């Protein structure tokens, strides 16, 4: 009994139940219940060894000193995460971001040591010393291993201490070394950045000096991707696969030239070959993208891995500059875990802080307003706006109350920290911008279109009657629900009325956001809608034919009755991305594999035309048939390697909760109706 009490006390201490439950969920999905219980109990005791001190630099160094190597991974590289050592804190850590790895490629640890005396520089020195010791531990561990390439690995790891990276394999090992520490020190959804750009000089020097061949470089890239894929279960956030390990390739430079090199192709080709859902690739495209690169990318997407995602430089860069980024920085953008543009190493940019649910203030309006007094759609939207303002203010206030741990390790990668002699959490960097995602814009738009049709045009119901029907979950009447779902005007259609309405509502949200600062910085939002299940489960039925708790629309999409892709792209091209609406605006669609196979060249033309005419901001697609998805749901064992694109990541279909499988199946079926 005493033991149980002690266990419960430990478990509940500092109100960390949720983090433990999350950990339990993550362990359980990977190891099963018995091992999970064992690990959870052992974690409780191990935790004491990395017990939090008020000084986060000290905690980091101590954590690094206590890391075990039991589950380390080796191929051409060494990579290690001790999944039993975890920071627990009431405060938050930065997450969902990409750091500037060129900092640690172009400097040794010795060179990164700050000179001036301050709390910040003391902290940085403590962390750097911690890394130095961790290098020693790592080397000692590798020395004992019976592997052929240990000398090379040791050399590449030891060089971190006092030299810049020189060779290609050394640069890759160095990125992995610092990346593993990022995960180890409590950061989730860690991106990789523009690897073809920052690695180019190491690769080309080695090729020129005949230090490596192109085949060897390809093998290094393959091993790099494979080893990053390790700890897949541990790195995954809410769903297996949601790791945020995104590699950004291609892109325009300041002179407008499209940057592409051997590595751009090699990363895409190697990812295609290994056929893993993670890491994933985002390809920055522009009208000048070489045809061969577009072909290679579609060839990779065609395998069904959902990657690369395309981000359109010709739109994104200008919008970033308009928002407030310097030109040079905007041209060098990378992304947070999925597609939210950020500039690595220049600021605190947290682009996925929370989700604005359009349906929430809409339902509040329906619940609180005298509905029969609403005269027309314009009146309804004006009243909705009032609730949006209130909702956004609540959201901003909530986030402003969040506390963050200092980030002495992340600060190493941010140029402004040394200049200002402050931790990134204090100085916030050059770009103290934050971002929020949104969800259910399409559902609200479709709801308003149906209210307009059934209440104000056809006079079938009063708004009050219509709302009562909604409150009763439309009496589960499929007739009514189908009519609501099949309004010929709907989100995703390139129709003037639909577009005006979508832009008007988004702009109401955008304006409300721009009237609020988060942690003193401007806030970005976007049309991407990743939490279409998480945030729909508690939302009542809606006038778009959605029953209580059913999923919201996925990103910028519309699969009902096979809306043509051209309509969806035309629609997306006319959405308003100005002002703060730059935080990810992805079109999401599903293509049947046989349709793609039969029309491959024309499909490439479709993408090429879409890119050269700025018809999308970002786009991703699943290449999968409803038939395969249904079969895999029925017999998971027959489809162990079936990969699908979920919101901003790829995952094994079998790892998804049933609700996500159902959304994909339904969307695939609806999409196929257009091309039967």
């Amino acid at each position, binding site marked *: 009994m005493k033991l149980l009490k002690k266990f419960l006390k430990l478990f509940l201490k500092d109100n960390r139940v949720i983090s433990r439950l999350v950990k339990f969920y993550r362990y359980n999905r990977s190891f099963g219940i018995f091992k999970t219980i064992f690990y959870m109990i052992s974690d409780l005791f191990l935790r004491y060894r990395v017990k939090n001190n008020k000084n986060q630099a000290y905690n980091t160094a101590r954590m690094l000193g206590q890391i075990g190597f039991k589950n380390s991974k080796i191929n051409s590289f060494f990579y290690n995460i001790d999944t039993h050592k975890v920071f627990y804190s009431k405060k938050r850590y930065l997450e969902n971001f990409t750091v500037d790895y060129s900092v640690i490629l172009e400097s040794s640890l010795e060179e990164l040591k700050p000179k001036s005396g301050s709390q910040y520089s003391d902290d940085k020195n403590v962390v750097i010393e911690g890394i130095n010791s961790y290098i020693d531990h790592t080397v000692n561990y590798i020395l004992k291993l019976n592997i052929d390439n240990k000398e090379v690995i040791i050399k590449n790891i030891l060089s971190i201490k006092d030299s810049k990276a020189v060779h290609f394999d050394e640069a890759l090992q160095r990125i992995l070394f610092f990346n593993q520490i990022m995960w180890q020190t409590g950061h989730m959804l860690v991106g990789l950045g523009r690897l073809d750009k920052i690695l180019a000089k190491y690769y080309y020097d080695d090729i020129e000096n005949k230090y490596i061949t192109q085949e060897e470089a390809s093998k290094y890239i393959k091993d790099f991707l494979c080893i990053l894929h390790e700890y897949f279960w541990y790195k995954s956030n809410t769903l297996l696969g949601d790791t945020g390990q995104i590699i950004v390739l291609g892109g325009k430079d300041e002179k407008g030239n499209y940057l592409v090199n051997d590595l751009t192709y090699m990363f895409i080709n190697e990812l295609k070959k290994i056929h893993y859902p993670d890491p994933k690739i985002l390809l920055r495209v522009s009208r000048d993208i070489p045809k061969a690169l577009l072909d290679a990318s579609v060839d990779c997407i065609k395998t069904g891995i959902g990657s690369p995602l395309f981000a359109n430089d010709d739109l994104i860069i200008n919008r970033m500059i308009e928002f407030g980024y310097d030109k040079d920085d905007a041209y060098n953008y990378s992304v947070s875990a999925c597609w939210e543009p950020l500039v690595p190493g220049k600021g605190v940019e947290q682009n996925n802080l929370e989700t604005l649910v359009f349906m929430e203030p809409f339902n509040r309006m329906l619940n609180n307003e005298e509905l029969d007094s609403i005269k027309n759609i314009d009146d309804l939207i004006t009243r909705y706006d009032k609730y949006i303002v209130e909702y956004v203010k609540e959201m901003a206030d909530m986030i402003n109350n969040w506390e963050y741990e200092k980030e002495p390790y992340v600060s190493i990668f941010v140029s402004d920290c040394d200049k200002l002699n402050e931790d990134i959490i204090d100085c916030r960097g050059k770009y103290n911008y934050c971002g929020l995602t949104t969800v259910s814009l399409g559902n609200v738009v479709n709801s308003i279109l149906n209210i307009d049709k059934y209440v104000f045009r056809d006079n079938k119901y009063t708004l009050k009657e219509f709302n009562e029907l909604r409150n009763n979950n439309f009496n589960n009447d499929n007739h009514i629900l189908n009519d609501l779902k099949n309004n010929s005007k709907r989100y995703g259609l390139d129709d003037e009325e639909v577009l005006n309405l979508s832009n008007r509502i988004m702009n109401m949200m955008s304006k409300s956001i721009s009237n609020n600062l988060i942690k003193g910085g401007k806030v970005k939002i976007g049309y991407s809608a990743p939490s279409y299940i998480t945030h729909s489960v508690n939302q009542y039925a809606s006038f778009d034919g959605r029953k209580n708790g059913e999923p919201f629309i996925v990103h910028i999409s519309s699969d009902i009755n096979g809306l*043509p892709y051209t309509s969806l792209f035309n629609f997306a091209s006319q959405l308003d991305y100005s002002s703060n609406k730059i935080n990810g605006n992805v079109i999401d669609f599903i293509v049947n594999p046989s349709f793609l196979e039969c029309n491959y060249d024309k499909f490439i033309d479709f993408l090429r035309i879409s890119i050269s005419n700025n018809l999308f901001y970002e786009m991703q697609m699943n290449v999968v048939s409803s038939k395969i998805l249904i079969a895999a749901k029925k017999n998971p064992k027959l489809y162990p390697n079936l990969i699908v694109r979920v919101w901003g990541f790829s995952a094994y279909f079998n790892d998804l909760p049933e609700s996500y499988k159902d959304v994909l199946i339904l969307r695939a079926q609806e999409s196929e109706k257009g091309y039967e």
Partner: protein
Amino acid sequence: MSSKVIVSNIQRFSLTDGEGIRTTVFLKGCSLKCPWCANPENINHSIERYHDADNNKDGVFGREMTIDEIYSEVVKDKVYYDNGGVTFSGGEPLLWINEYEELLKRLKDENINICFETSLFVKKEYMELALKYADSMIVDLKILDSDLTKNVLMNNLSLYLDNIETLFKIFDPSKIVIRIPVSNEYVISNSDKYVDFIKKYTPKRVELFKLHNLGEKKYLLLGLKMNKYEEVSDSDLDDFKNKLESVCETALLKF
């Protein structure tokens, strides 16, 4: 632009009816009664209502559209018509060409590529009018026997053959695709006739498709019964394809 035509569907992002990315306008009304027709809703030149018992809902095949309405729909994807454009199909689109000639003029003025997917069982003047605007033609080759054409398709083979002769005389053969619905009964058993035909006219390409029953649901909705045909074997289809390829540049298995 006040004329109207009966349209059963306007399919955007249509990739099978001509070059590039296209929009296909399906017009109701046909001059033939092909028993294997996959689009039975396009045979009659009238609006047809139906009741879908499976989904317990009423529906309609076809609606009258003005030229302006069709124009607004087909120009939506203009940006994608790089080497694509607009295809008129059916039914038999040439039967109603006088009604929508204004639309053709407008598309031509905007340099939008125009294609007709036709059986050519129409008056010669209709075809000649179409050729004034056409950038390419997809022409069906169904049955090459007079009696069978009369009994099965309910039309006159000589009308077709005369039109074909004229077409290949006045229109660039490299812009003509011949499309053959392949059945054992009418085609495979007379394959030499088809090969001779293709050899004589040398179109740009021949597209072959097997008869299928994808249109069965539409037959049911219209209260009709769909004829079933014995499926052509892959080896017979391949043989036929190879024979055709010996006399023309490309023969594709299309569907």
